[in-house]
């Protein structure tokens, strides 16, 4: 019987003990009330740890030293309990009123303007407008020069003012909420904003906590308070907080509580709190489990009394509510380069004009005095003097400045405004897209960042969280192996047949809130009261599931007064699933206090004393509970991960069962289930005594408490009898494998970063089709820097070989390409500690870029950011991070685009994200459809805006060459101003919002079309320079055709100016019309409407007798020459573009072009045939 257990299975898929480390964020277990907070620091690597090193893991001793360290008085905040006067005497701590509004009435205008002028474009605008006001430089009239800037500023100001008004209103509501505060030994209502640090506050059930406070006592005799932290970190389950034993029996109204809390300075770590409290001469240490944080809600607890330690803006909630980070889109940063090029053009034009003017003035210097059209001399005032002439040098300088004013729209200011409008429009369509709406969570797509829409079309790397992002994070109990027998819940049992287990007590029916699939056979066994071994094993198994956890049952009233629901609240969804399963099989956990639990076993309420509880830790990977049963026996129940459980099970007792269970475990884990092994042992009195004394000793120890406790646990968790194993399914979200496949076909690399174990990660990798049986796995799993280095070198060699080998197979098989024989890199967090931030980073990156799949497991939140940074800093490719939990925040903020899943975990990730949506699979339409569209639209809109303004500037410039370089404009100043604001702006915006190069179905069907964004097909310097050449040609055509046609005629400058205005507007709009892909009525309205609007505006301007050009348009439009010129200009200007465009599209078509043709001429079927041929290559069947 003592034969050795078979060596650990090589596959070794140890599945998820998801308990307290699920999110890398600690959970406090019930018994912790006695111990304080010693080892939370394990997990409390919150978002804002000061460690620079990614994911360094504190050892026990470090933690220990930290917790024992005295907080220096200089670093500490001293809070005198119930003495706000003294507390605030020396330092004025922040009051509890909050202000999220940015401005007050007085500061609004200056601050808002200051912020707006942070944009270089606006400053340019302003400088030009100011220059224009100088008497020597007046080019435009006052009104015309200031109007555009004023308009833009006004719109933005009104928008900001409205937003700030809303913030102020919500602040006011928040500040005027009421709370009970102890004043003169009685609780009085006080407004939140008047609460001071040091005051004692009483909270009622379901109240929101007004400030960060240390719990003194609660309605629960053991000092437990339950809080919901959904507003803070988004987790919806209840968390337990404890009052210290020394304070929980005090009533502030009667006994004066006097004490001193010495706590750390306010910081934004919501999972950490360090303080100590001196009360009645005793010094107690306080940890994060002793504080209630602002924004949380008190639940399930009658009342709680606490003392305020941080208030107002110093609370952790407020410190964490930083605004969304301001990101700049890639296209926009690229665009800035082209803007610099345009500035160079502008300076060149101005230089040409001023140099020519200088030469002209020099050559005519003797004539200037009398030239009828210059007349330097002023004779009107007795003595003859120069009029408006400041010498040759100054004249040149002024000419330069004036030409900057005249040619100012070369730098397309309006572009910034139209880009913003286009993005708003694009966001509208993304939000309104029914395909991005999630039915289950009733959430729409959210566009939180408005300036990176187009980045969605160029994503090359997707970093995804696993739990809650790829999976639903809804654990479901699927099957169990008890006593060596596998009870896999058979599918196909309809809902009615197992309407859910319920018990009736005193005429009230209790029913678990969630239903679980049941195995009929197992149910029968659970319900039978026969005393067979099998039955007993089943009973013990479910008893273990019901008892061995940290779940709090809540009884919820339903609309039917005779029925009550039981809701199991806890930090681990795995435990919740197990308890629900136990309840369904008749072992319903009804009540939990710190000393006992009540379990309803098949209708009989039984009370178990909880004698001790060893909570989960990452070394033991198991937890145990010691129960005093009603029959006076003492039993220890243990559940944990198979790797560590199998070693503590007494192999001699039931070898067959053990063996069978192992087989089942293997089967479960290869199905992708998370497995747990359950064992138990009955303790005899001496064993119990021995444990009890050592447990007491360990839990009161001052030094090394955690290690001692672990040792005690290790002693008692031995020689267990195996009861069985459970299989829990963490369901993949709907459509995840397909989504990942689409993304990868589109050329996007998907990296999964998870806090889960390697085995779980790999199994999810398989089920999500990231990994297939052909994938070669390269695993890096090392404990030191040296071994990491070695591993990396080996792995790089392997990867190289793989590529060459696959090259060979390519040749022989003739079907595959190198990229299709994929290698998967699997790295764990411990190795990353050594790799990130060291010289090995580079090596890891090179290796990773050779692999088609990268899985990182056991990574801490900051390591996730580190990995994103690894890629971001080494490539120019765009990165996207998607996640749902607080642990993904750093990654979401680090990536170029952050996407939050607004699902189970709540709002922390969403708050930090740029876009938020309900499901992972929405990433596909978001990137492939909207991203593609947005990129194409924005790229085109930018290039078009450059062209549109430049063509106008060039027409002005050519005319200047015919006016002695004196910067006259034939086009009226109002038309110059309205040109980019009114005549040509709407079509760009409409096309930028509405044009679609390809339909949604095509884009989804051929994800490869996404490559257009990767190859920067819609915006690159080639397009820019071609566009500029075209611009010059078009301006030449538009300018010189009328010049030749009207040379030596009676035409006046207003008439020809109107002709140029209209010609340029028509030209620019037809140019756009030529590039529009999809003509809807809106496009028609915008383009033709703009042309009509231009005619109307020009006519209106020419209807003012006080302007020079009075009635010019009506005279000139009567002549045939005018219309012939217009027609000629349009055809000549657009001819080269038309020819080049056609030749390019016809003889070197891009993918998008082919797909468009296919879409139009309906031979998509042919494409489909090709697609099918390719399918087997892309997606090889698994084994």
């Amino acid at each position: 019987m003592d034969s050795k257990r078979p060596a650990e299975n090589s596959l070794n898929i140890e599945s998820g003990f998801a308990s307290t480390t699920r999110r890398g964020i600690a959970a406090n277990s019930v018994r912790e009330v006695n111990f304080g907070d010693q080892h939370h620091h394990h997990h409390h690597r919150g978002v804002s740890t000061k460690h620079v090193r990614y994911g360094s893991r504190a050892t026990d001793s470090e933690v220990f030293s930290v917790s024992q360290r005295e907080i220096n008085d200089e670093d500490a905040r001293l809070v005198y309990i119930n003495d706000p006067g003294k507390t605030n005497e020396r330092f004025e701590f922040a009051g509890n009123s909050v202000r999220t509004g940015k401005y007050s009435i007085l500061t609004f205008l200056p601050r808002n303007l200051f912020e707006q002028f942070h944009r270089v474009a606006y400053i340019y605008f302003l400088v030009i407008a100011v220059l224009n006001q100088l008497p020597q430089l007046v080019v435009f009239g006052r009104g015309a020069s200031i109007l555009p800037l004023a308009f833009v500023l006004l719109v933005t100001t009104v928008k900001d003012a409205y937003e700030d008004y809303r913030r102020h209103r919500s602040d006011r509501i928040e500040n005027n909420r009421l709370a009970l505060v102890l004043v003169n030994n009685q609780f009085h209502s006080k407004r939140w904003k008047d609460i001071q640090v040091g005051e004692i506050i009483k909270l009622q059930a379901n109240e929101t906590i007004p400030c960060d406070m240390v719990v003194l006592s609660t309605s629960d005799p053991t000092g437990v308070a339950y809080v919901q932290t959904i507003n803070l970190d988004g987790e919806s389950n209840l968390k337990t907080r404890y009052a210290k034993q020394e304070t929980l029996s005090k009533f502030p109204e009667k006994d004066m509580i006097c004490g001193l809390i010495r706590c750390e300075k306010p910081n934004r770590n919501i999972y950490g709190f360090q303080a100590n409290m001196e009360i009645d001469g005793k010094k107690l240490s306080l940890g994060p489990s002793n504080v209630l944080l602002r924004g949380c809600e008190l639940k399930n607890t009658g009342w709680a009394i606490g003392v305020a330690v941080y208030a107002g803006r110093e609370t952790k909630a407020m410190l964490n509510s930083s605004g969304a980070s301001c990101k700049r889109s890639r296209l926009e940063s690229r665009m800035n380069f082209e803007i610099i090029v345009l500035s160079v053009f502008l300076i060149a034009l101005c230089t040409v004009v001023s140099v020519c003017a200088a030469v002209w003035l020099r050559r005519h210097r003797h004539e200037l005095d009398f030239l009828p059209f210059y007349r330097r001399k002023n004779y009107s005032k007795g003595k003859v003097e120069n009029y408006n002439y400041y010498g040759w040098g100054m004249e040149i300088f002024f000419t330069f400045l004036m030409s900057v004013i005249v040619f100012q729209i070369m730098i397309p200011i309006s572009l910034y405004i139209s880009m913003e409008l286009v993005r708003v429009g694009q966001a509208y369509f993304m939000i309104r897209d029914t395909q991005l709406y999630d039915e289950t969570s009733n959430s729409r797509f959210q566009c939180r960042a408005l300036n990176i829409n187009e980045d969605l079309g160029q994503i090359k790397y997707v970093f995804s969280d696993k739990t809650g992002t790829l999976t639903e994070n809804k654990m479901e109990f699927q099957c169990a192996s008890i006593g060596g027998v596998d009870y896999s819940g058979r599918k196909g049992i309809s809902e009615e047949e197992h309407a859910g287990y319920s018990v009736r007590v005193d005429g009230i029916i209790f029913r678990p809130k969630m239903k679980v699939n049941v195995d009929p056979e197992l149910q029968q066994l659970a319900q039978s009261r026969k005393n067979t071994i099998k039955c007993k094993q089943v009973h013990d198994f479910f008893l273990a599931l019901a008892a061995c956890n940290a779940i709090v049952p809540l009884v919820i009233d339903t609309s039917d007064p005779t029925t009550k629901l039981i809701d199991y609240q806890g930090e681990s969804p795995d435990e919740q699933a197990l308890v629900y399963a136990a309840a369904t099989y008749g072992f319903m956990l009804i009540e939990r206090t710190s000393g006992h639990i009540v379990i309803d076993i098949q209708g009989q309420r039984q009370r178990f004393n909880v004698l001790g509880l060893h909570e989960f830790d990452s070394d033991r990977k198991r937890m145990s509970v010691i129960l005093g049963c009603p029959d006076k026996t003492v039993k220890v129940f243990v559940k944990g991960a198979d790797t560590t459980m199998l070693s503590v099970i007494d192999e001699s007792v039931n070898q067959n069962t053990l063996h069978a269970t192992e087989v089942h475990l293997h089967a479960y884990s290869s199905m992708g289930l998370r497995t747990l092994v359950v064992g138990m042992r009955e303790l005899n009195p001496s064993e119990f005594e021995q444990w009890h004394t050592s447990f007491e000793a360990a839990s009161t120890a001052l030094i090394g408490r955690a290690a001692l406790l672990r040792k005690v646990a290790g002693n008692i968790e031995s020689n267990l009898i195996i009861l069985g194993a459970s299989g829990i399914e963490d369901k993949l979200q709907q459509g995840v494998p397909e989504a990942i496949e689409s993304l990868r076909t589109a050329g996007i690399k998907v990296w999964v970063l998870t806090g889960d174990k390697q085995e779980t990660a790999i199994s999810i990798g398989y089920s999500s089709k990231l990994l297939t049986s052909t994938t070669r796995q390269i695993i890096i799993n090392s404990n030191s820097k040296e071994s990491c280095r070695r591993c990396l070198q080996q792995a790089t060699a392997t990867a190289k070989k793989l590529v060459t080998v696959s090259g060979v197979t390519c040749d022989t098989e003739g079907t595959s390409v190198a990229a299709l024989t994929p290698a998967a890199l699997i790295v764990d967090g411990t190795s990353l500690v050594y790799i990130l931030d060291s010289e090995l980073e580079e090596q890891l990156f090179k290796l990773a870029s050779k692999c088609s799949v990268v899985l990182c497991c056991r990574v801490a939140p900051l390591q996730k950011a580190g990995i994103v940074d690894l890629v971001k800093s080494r490539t120019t490719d765009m990165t996207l991070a998607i996640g749902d939990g607080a642990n993904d925040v750093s990654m979401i903020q680090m990536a170029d685009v952050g996407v939050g899943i607004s699902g189970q975990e709540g709002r922390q990730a969403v708050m930090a994200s740029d876009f938020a949506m309900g499901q992972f699979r929405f990433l596909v339409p978001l990137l492939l459809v909207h991203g593609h569209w947005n990129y194409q639209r924005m790229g085109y809109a930018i290039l078009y805006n450059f062209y549109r303004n430049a063509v106008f500037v060039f027409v002005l410039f050519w005319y200047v060459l015919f006016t002695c370089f004196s910067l006259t404009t034939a086009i009226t100043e109002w038309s110059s101003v309205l040109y980019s604001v009114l005549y040509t702006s709407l079509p760009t915006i409409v096309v930028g919002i509405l044009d679609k190069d390809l339909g949604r179905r095509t884009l989804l069907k051929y994800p490869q079309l996404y490559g257009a964004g990767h190859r920067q097909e819609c915006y690159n310097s080639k397009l820019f320079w071609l566009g500029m050449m075209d611009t010059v040609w078009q301006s030449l055509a538009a300018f010189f055709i009328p010049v030749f046609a009207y040379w030596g005629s009676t035409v006046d400058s207003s008439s020809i100016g109107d002709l140029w205005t209209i010609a340029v507007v028509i030209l620019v709009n037809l140019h756009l019309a030529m590039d529009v892909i999809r003509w809807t009525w809106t496009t028609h309205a915008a383009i033709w409407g703009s042309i009509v609007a231009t005619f109307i505006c020009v006519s209106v301007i020419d209807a003012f007798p006080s302007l020079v050009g009075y009635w010019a348009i009506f005279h000139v439009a009567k002549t045939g020459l005018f219309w012939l010129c217009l027609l000629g200009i349009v055809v000549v200007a657009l001819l080269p573009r038309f020819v080049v465009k056609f030749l390019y599209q016809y003889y070197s078509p891009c993918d998008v072009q082919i797909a468009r043709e296919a879409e139009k001429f309906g031979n998509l079927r042919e494409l489909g045939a090709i697609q099918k041929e390719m399918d087997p290559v892309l997606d090889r069947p698994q084994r």
Partner: protein
Amino acid sequence: MMNPNGASSSDGDGASHSSSALKKNSKKPKYSRFSQQELPACKPILTPGLVISTFVVVSFLFIPIGLVSLFASERVVEIKERYDEDCIPSNYTKNVVGYIQSNETNKTCVKKFTVPKKMKSPVFIYYQLDNFYQNHRRYVKSRSDKQLQSKAFEDETETCKPEDSADKSPIVPCGLIAWSLFNDTYRFSVKNAALNVSKRDIAWKSDRQHKFGSDVYPKNFQSTGLIGGAKLTTSIPLSQQEDLIVWMRTAALPTFRKLYGKIEVDLEADDEVTVVIENNYNTYSFGGRKRLVLSTTTWIGGKNDFLGIAYISIGGICLFFAISFILLYVIKPRPLGDPSYLSWNKNTAANMK
């Protein structure tokens, strides 16, 4: 509302109520073709057929238009006589500026020319100036439209500097443009019979009626300082000073014509026209040229072959493109929407080789 079977219906009500509440709370975006970007749309693609037919249409449209306008331009009879050099007496050729600025010199000058073809009335008389930048910024801005419009704004001369006031009272019309009013005059005769030159309706009606006030009379004009050009009769309101109105429509380009008057009778071919020119206007100081132009008009305006030639050339180029694209299409066609051109299919194909 009374319901006989309360118990069962209440159940149903509850259910429907909750479902309707769910619907009310549902944030599902409403479907509309607009919000889903599925508006009916026309998706033109540059197919060879479309492109070739465009070129054919353009060329078939442009060549006739070009021919018609060329023909129209040919029909215009134009007589152009440069007189600025010829009208300088030979003893002043070294000192042209002195001659033109002097008050004593005789500026009268006689020129003769024959009419090449019959000119149907009305025959328009223009003066054409070269190298005269009526579009110079200093010049263009030196006027006061308000002052021209109404007597009430007589003092609005701020923009007119340096011709704004004389002896502290405003000049009407002020500014450099009015100051430099053209002052050469022409008298025509055919076979010793004087031709009547009509100076009425040579300016735009809109200008006469609205832009130049009928209550605005010239004042202090060309009275002191430097004399720039013609003087105005102070008893005629600006709205009837048609020469001024024509002059004030500043020309767009440095070579320009202005209407001087109309001859309301036909001029027969080979008629010899004698013109007596009062050569007063000083273009000599800056090298400007002066021409006298007699011309008939057609729908296209004056004589200008440019547009006709341009249209014919554009039509020709388009025809050339049409033919070459047809050839290209025949020689090297590409099936539209052929998937084998897709980059990812090309890659596989390349690998297969």
